[in-house]
């Protein structure tokens, strides 16, 4: 289970802190990589820029993606993930404050695997993160890494 990692794409440090705390409280001890904006997230996934030394084949088990991000927003990140052969099967969960119908529709259209609105109530938030971790890290069987794909 330890090799199953999470990529948290979140620009709000409070939300990062709260998410990490919720994960810890639920004993989800997998390693979490935090990307503060869309560019950093894509750099990490495709091993470019600051992450150029990273093994591109080591993909996270799940990406928790906020929508409102600096530089490149969440929808753009999702589009890039889905349009690249290496990452097009990567599970992506949109975790955002917005419950706008427009965002929901666009998110699913672009191939999000799940869409969760961050509740204001921390208890509910913790519960959501718990279920998220349980589902995506334990229950869900991730897509196999394709041989020869780079």
């Amino acid at each position: 289970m330890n090799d199953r990692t999470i990529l948290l794409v979140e620009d709000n440090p409070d939300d990062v802190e709260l998410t990490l705390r919720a994960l810890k409280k639920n004993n989800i001890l997998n390693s979490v990589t935090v990307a503060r904006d869309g560019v950093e997230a894509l750099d990490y996934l495709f091993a470019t820029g600051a992450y150029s030394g990273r093994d591109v084949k080591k993909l996270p088990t799940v990406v928790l993606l906020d929508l409102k991000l600096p530089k490149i927003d969440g929808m753009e990140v999702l589009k890039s993930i889905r349009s690249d052969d290496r990452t097009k099967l990567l599970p992506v969960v949109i975790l955002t404050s917005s419950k706008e119908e427009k965002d929901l529709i666009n998110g699913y259209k672009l191939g999000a695997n799940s869409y969760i609105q961050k509740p204001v109530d921390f208890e509910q938030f913790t519960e959501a993160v718990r279920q998220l971790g349980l589902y995506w890290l334990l229950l869900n069987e991730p897509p196999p890494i394709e041989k020869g794909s780079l």
Partner: protein
Amino acid sequence: MSIKTRLKINTIASVAAVIITGVVFIGANSQMEKVSRKETKTAVLVKGITELEILTYDYLLHHEKRSEEQWKMRYDSLQNSLLSGEFKEPAELAVLERVNNNLKGIKYNFSQLTEGYRNGQDRLSNKTTIELQERLISQMMLSSREAVSDSFKLNELTHRERENVRQKSNMLTGFLISVLAVVITSISFLINRTISEPLRKLREGTEVVGSGNLAYRINMDTKDEIGQLSRSFDQMTERLKRVSVSRDELVKENIKRRQMGNALKAANRELEAFSYSVSHDLRAPLRSIDGFSRALLEDYLDRLDEKGKDYLNRVCRASQRMGQLIDDMLILSRVVRAEMHYEEVDLSAMAREISSNLGNSRSEHRVEFIIQEGLTATGDARLLKMAMENLLGNAWKFTEKHSSAKIEFGAKRENGKQVFFVRDDGAGFDMAYVNKLFQPFQRLHELAEFSGTGVGLANVKRIIQRHGGDIWAEGAIERGAAFYFSI
């Protein structure tokens, strides 16, 4: 007088002119024919008398019986031709009388002569007889000359008459043709004037109106066809003006609406951006407030006294409540801008579904639902469901404090319109505050008593209004509330 009548008169006048000219011509012709017959008669008379003279000479030379008989026959035929009634004029009759008398004289002389010859053939040498003969002959000669001269006179009279008739008929024909020409010309002139002048006015009018001046009127008051036409044209212009005025107003109204629509669209876009930012940006700090307050409560519990814990709990509740307010506000703004999809909605079925959901959620609360069957309305199913959920949810909420409760959904007719209602026998409200009921974030109960943000009924009102309907409420404290709405 109408143009048609005028044209008719002109046609009749022309035909009359032709007929009158024809009649005059025929009359003149028959006059001439009569004169011609007289001329023939006169010629016969002259010829007869001349022949009678020649026969007389013949007899005098030969004294033959044959000549005598021929003479008598000629005389009889002359007498006959004198009797035929061609001549009627007094002058002619006088001449004829003279001719007749002369002929009678000639006859008498000739008879005397022939008798004398027959009796005294052998006494031809008789001097007295010869004298008598000579006298007779000269007498006869004389009479015959006179008769011939009279005949010529008659001829001359006839000739003069002929000239007279010809002149008269020429004059009459000329006069009639002139009169008719004057009549036809003047009528034609009148027609021309009553047609061409008004036609010019009409043409000018149509040009003015055609160039866009719809206020112009031809105003022709004649009673003929062109007058009628111009009046019809004026009426048409009037109607056109009215239509074009209403069209202009329509265009103006349209432009105004388009501007309003654009402004509305802009406002909607702003609202959308605002609500997006509200939903995303306002919730994030709330989450932090709530989250870290809880972290404090959890991680530093041992360092907090009761008061400190209470304060942190208040912070948490407040932030949660604010989160709820934000969510309700977003719903309100969504209700305002949601697109409407009209369809037939079964409100009874909707009420049944909602009531069974409510019944499942809180089983301790005993409520009797009375739902009238077969109530439908045309509207947006999603929005109507939201309204029904709010109304029935409210009824549920405000009956919770009663041990047993009744919630009713039904319809009645009021002023010919179908009015739906949701009625309960719960906490009710004071009618003095009925105006505040539908205003957003206005509450009639304390939070501790009944939960809620006060947006629900505001949402219901917006939904009903968006359907073009009306909503109002009746209630009394602890005696229930009733909400009525029409769609």
